């Protein structure tokens, strides 16, 4: 449904995208994760037909974003990172304008506007000026506008920015509901826990490249990975030496009497590690294996302080 092949985009001397490739199948919710300046917004803008790439190919629902931009826009909903609003328009007028802009006519127009009003929870405030709405309301208004023409593909660039916790939960539920209706979604966000909750797949982007495969190779994935938090007594150097000697284990970080170990495999492998360490004479006071979170993965790939 979303295809990007070897996309390159240069801003003067900076390569915003450097051979980025991605394929999102119909019905997926894919999270796009990477540090600031990694190329997330550039990629989304290219897919949304706002920016032209220098080389490569990008397509939405089989339509080339450069060759058939109108066909792309007809099936695409785009929510920018900082969405703008016409504050001097009334709520209903705002939806009516975008219904007209998407050529929604006749009875479908009225139905689309009513649906958008209901979705944004602003039916009772349809005649109010947009400028009088709260930030959360405005965010809902923009999201409802993005969905007005019932797009089959959604590109969401930091959709949770500025939302309070309740609004964030509502947004997550809405995204899940849309996905259940068959909408394919590419979502960029720094809120990793949200992405972990809703996405079917995560794509890592760094310096304009899709590094998901590299990251998986570096950490031994796609096999399952567990992260074990181990607390022990005694000499730390000796314990670290024992851990490093264990098969399928990798020290992520350590401090004092605590070591964080990544184990390739599942609970069997974790149990084997525990037996191995006990056999080596390590006095363990806590051994806590859990699945590696997106935050763990992010920290491992992009660096940052240990948890």
């Amino acid at each position, binding site marked *: 449904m979303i295809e990007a092949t070897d996309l390159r985009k240069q801003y003067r001397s900076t390569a915003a995208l450097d051979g980025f490739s991605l394929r999102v199948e119909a019905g997926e919710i894919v999270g796009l994760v990477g540090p600031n300046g990694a190329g997330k917004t550039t990629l989304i*803008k290219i897919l*949304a*037909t*706002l*920016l*032209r790439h220098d080389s490569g190919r990008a397509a939405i629902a089989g339509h080339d974003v450069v060759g058939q931009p*109108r066909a792309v*826009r*007809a099936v*695409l909903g*785009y929510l*920018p990172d*900082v*969405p*703008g*609003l*016409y*504050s*001097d*328009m009334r709520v209903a*007028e705002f939806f009516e*304008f*975008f219904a*007209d*802009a*998407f*050529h929604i006519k006749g009875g479908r127009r009225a139905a689309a506007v009513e649906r958008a009003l209901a979705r944004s929870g602003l039916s009772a405030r349809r005649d109010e000026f947009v400028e009088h709405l709260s930030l959360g309301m405005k965010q809902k208004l923009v999201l409802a*506008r993005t969905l007005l023409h019932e797009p089959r593909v959604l590109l969401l660039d930091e959709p949770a920015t500025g939302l309070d916790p309740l609004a964030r939960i509502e947004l997550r539920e809405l995204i899940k509901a849309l996905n259940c209706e068959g909408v394919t979604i590419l979502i960029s966000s720094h809120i990793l826990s949200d992405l972990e909750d809703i996405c079917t797949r995560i794509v890592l982007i760094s310096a304009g490249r899709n590094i998901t495969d590299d990251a998986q190779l570096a950490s031994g994935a796609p096999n399952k990975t567990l992260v074990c938090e181990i607390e022990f007594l005694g000499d730390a150097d000796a314990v670290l030496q024992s851990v490093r000697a264990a098969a399928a284990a990798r020290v992520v970080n350590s401090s004092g009497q605590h070591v964080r170990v990544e184990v390739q495999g599942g609970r069997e492998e974790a149990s084997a590690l525990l037996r191995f360490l006990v056999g080596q004479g390590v006095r363990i006071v806590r051994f806590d294996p859990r699945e590696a979170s997106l935050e763990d993965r992010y920290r491992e790939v992009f660096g940052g302080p240990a948890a």
Partner: protein
Amino acid sequence: MNPMIRKELRQRMRERRAWILPTLYLGVLGGVVALTYYVSTEGSFESAFRPARDIQGSAIGAAVFLAVIMSQLALLMLLAPIFSAGAITIEKEQRTLAGLLTSLLTPFQIWAGKFTAAMMFLVLLLISSVPVLALCFSLGGVGWSDVAAAFGMTLAILASIGAIGLYCSSYFRRSVHSTAVCYAVVIAISVLTAIAAYMLASSWQARHPVTQAAQIQPNPPGYLMAPLYLNPFYALISVFAPREGKVPTWAKCLALFLAMTVLFSLLAIQNIKRRGEQA
């Protein structure tokens, strides 16, 4: 109807300036009429109400008419960049351009909405001055054809300034830059063209001094006056000038202003198409 036009007109008429500007505009034009009438009736307050016998009403009417259409052009040229040069930059500043560009609106529709809204307000101001001009009819010396010709040329000039303003607006990110450049262009075509024509004519006359045989200064050739064809005030006056040559001067001016309108409109539409990174 193009949804952009409906949206723009609705938003424009909600602004406070929608009623403040016509009020100020008509106030200034009313002042111009009073002043011109006062001056053209020998400049005394008393004579303004009892004109001297040797002054024809038609002469006063023509003087008032010329003063009004020239002042009107100057005022509208000052206002045109306000309506046009911020029209697209405001969409960039309030981050709404992305919503327009990712909808099914074409760049032409976006441009047409902005251009029509800017022109409609200027036309509203132009039409609102008709009652002021009606005074000239009561004095005589001016016909409906003169008014129509003046309005037609004024509209052509305003359309070209509107198109230049929209081009600046499509090019720059911020309204302040776009408006400043548009005003610079307005000043250039109003002042620099006159200075350029004067300098070219002076230079030509210096090279062609008065001969004893002719005893009169020869007129410089017409092409030296070419910069004036871009001068809005010269263009407006040319409408009432007697016809010289195959193509009347007003037609040359009109063609130039229309060409500028088309050129800058096409450039603006291209810019809207390409300026997704500013969205």
